[in-house]
């Protein structure tokens, strides 16, 4: 646990601190979603039948496909870190780009999924939705807000990983200084893990 102080130039680099800061930030993200998971639990408890009916309208196939995509992207992210540790710069860049492509694929699926719902007139404030019982309004309200906020995190993740790719190309991220890439990876796994909870809650439990 030694802090690397260099007395002459005072350049301070502490990877343990950087990782710690990132983990703390991930806690805050978990709590951010935690507020919505509380809402979900309470409303599921008070409206079990309506949640059951509403969940049947979601497309499990697209959901499963997207889960597979996101899990694979976590793998490629982890591989890109493993590659940079082994001084394989171009391999790391390829894996990072692959992660971005998978993330974009997830968003494209999401677009079609939401689009189909909109087409059927199921979106917040629509007449079709408002004519349904309140439990279903709540279910779709939570569905749009939670997957929407998750989607926003996916987009932010894409931007972050794009920056990491640029950093790797410019040798800002190297085999002995890759804490930035590691932090981006942690963030990406968080995005993944939140989806792993969203998927069963909305698609599988009916």
């Amino acid at each position, binding site marked *: 646990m030694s*802090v690397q*102080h260099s*007395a002459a*130039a*005072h*350049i*301070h*680099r*502490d990877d*343990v*601190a*950087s990782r*710690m*800061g990132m983990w*703390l*930030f991930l*806690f*805050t*993200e978990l*709590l*951010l*979603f*935690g*507020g*919505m998971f*509380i*809402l979900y639990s*309470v*409303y599921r408890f*008070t*409206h079990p039948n309506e949640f059951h009916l509403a969940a049947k309208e979601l497309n499990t196939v697209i959901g499963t496909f997207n889960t597979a995509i996101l899990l694979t992207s976590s793998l490629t992210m982890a591989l890109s870190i493993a590659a940079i540790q082994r001084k394989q710069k171009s391999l790391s860049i390829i894996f990072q780009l692959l992660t971005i492509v998978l993330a974009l694929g997830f968003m494209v699926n999401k677009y079609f999924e939401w689009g189909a719902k909109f087409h059927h007139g199921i979106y*917040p*404030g629509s007449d079709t939705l*408002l004519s349904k*019982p*309140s*439990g279903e*309004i*709540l279910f779709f*309200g*939570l569905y*749009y*807000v939670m997957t929407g906020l998750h989607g926003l995190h996916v987009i932010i993740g894409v931007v972050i990983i794009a920056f990491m790719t640029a950093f790797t190309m410019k040798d800002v991220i190297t085999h002995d200084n890759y804490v930035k890439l590691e932090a981006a990876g942690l963030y990406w796994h968080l995005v993944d893990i939140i989806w792993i909870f969203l998927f069963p809650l909305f698609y599988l439990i009916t």
Partner: protein
Amino acid sequence: MSNENILSNNGNDVSYLEYKGKHTGIWGWLLSTDHKRIGLLYLISLTIFLIVGVVFGFLMRLELLTPGRTIMDPQTYNSIFTLHGVIMIFLFVVPGLPAVFGNFFLPILIGARDVAFPRLNLLSWYLYAIGGILAIISILIPGGPADTGWTFYIPYSVRTNTNVIPALFAAFILGFSSILTGLNFVTTVHRMRAPGMEWFKMPLSVWSLYATAWVQVLATPIIGITLLLVGIERIFGVGLFDPALGGDPVLYQHLFWIYSHPAVYIMILPAMGVVSEIIPVFAHRTIFGYKFIAMSSIAIALFGSLVWAHHMFTAGMSDTGQLIFSLLTMIVAIPSAIKVFNWVATLYKGSIDLQPPMLYVLAFIFQFSIGGLTGVMQGVLSVDIQVHDTSFIVAHFHYVMFGGTGFGFFAALHYWFPKMFGKMYNINLAKKVFWALFVGFNTLYFPMFIMGWLGMPRRYYDYLPEYQIYHVISTIGSWILVPALFLMFGNLIYALFKGAKVTEKNIWGGETLEWQIATPPVHENFIDIPVVTESPYQYKDNELVLQTQEAK
């Protein structure tokens, strides 16, 4: 994280105020990652918002001088109490001590050259500034300022046509700024302590800032998502809280208070730290019960996070829930009381020097005790039904937040001012101003306890004639308090330009590390990182025992 604007040792011969880095002029401040300069940026912006908040509060008091209309219409009154709350809570007391004095002194107190993430620290200030600007925008744009109260309770906050959205996003962004500061401080305390500074050798204000930082990190995201959901609810009509669409407004209240109750500990804990710091210096006594004070900060942070529903005893909750939250509320009083007893025990047999910081600290103990004990009264279920939503609550809250945190802020300002700027204010004037503040404060808020007990509701524009006498006394109090506040700031600002120069390192006779470096500090704080061998606060026969500090 590298601190790139440091090239060589050139930061060690001039003070941080004169230091020239990569950027010069105004950019030397706005782009500086020096924790001391960021602390001052916060000090300036917080003071501006404090003054705005004070003016709104003053106008509210003036309106309540007579029943019915005095100076403004009811809608304006609603907006003004909302703005007073939003500005004072989110822009002044929550950032308050951690952002100003935490930024400036936390690294120095633990013997570090900066916080763990200097650039993130600057980003926090920018987020604060953006939040502040959004709050101002919500006042100025057409539609009228928000009139929901600072609590944004649903369903009214979804129905009103005023500018709730900018106010919500202001609070959201300010929350983000607070999270980043907390994250930075937790990491700093874990990773940046000087060699030899074990956990139980840390100054007590570091303990309280550390406990605060955890609450900032763990509680603030909940308000973030809650306020975001209210915004989404307003824009898209999602219905998660709106009872018309099946949502549950009581759930909103739960989520709101899950943050907003711990938030009051974010506000008070750093002030308690300052009190623990100042008392030994001016009583010339070793702090009594160091470990108890340190651990009670952690206990307050822990239990304080589990009491939120006591804001909702009358909102509809099971009896079991009420009993649990009532019990937990009383438990929080224990660590707070431990602190008060230890402070008083430190004063016993001390040689007390009533300098301005000490006066503010003594007022803190007095006012915080009143505020804290009335808080326990409200935790009693039967009493709460009587006093809920009356001005008794307003009095309690202001005794804790203004009489406590506010006075703690002023204590810190008077204590560290000479160290921060190398200038001394007029001490005699500062003492006189203190007494005016003390009298004004108690005249303003104490009558609220009485009229609240008698049934005066809070946030009401109009009232029955029998309450007028209390309102008149209270408003007279504001006429003493507000000029005294301006005089206090006047004294300090005058000292900035014309005050006597201070170059002495240890002007008050303190033992923590900030008193062993140059006044004002150099850019890098420490030329050599100190090695800490002793606990802080060691006095023998009312004399300071100088801590042995070896240069590395």
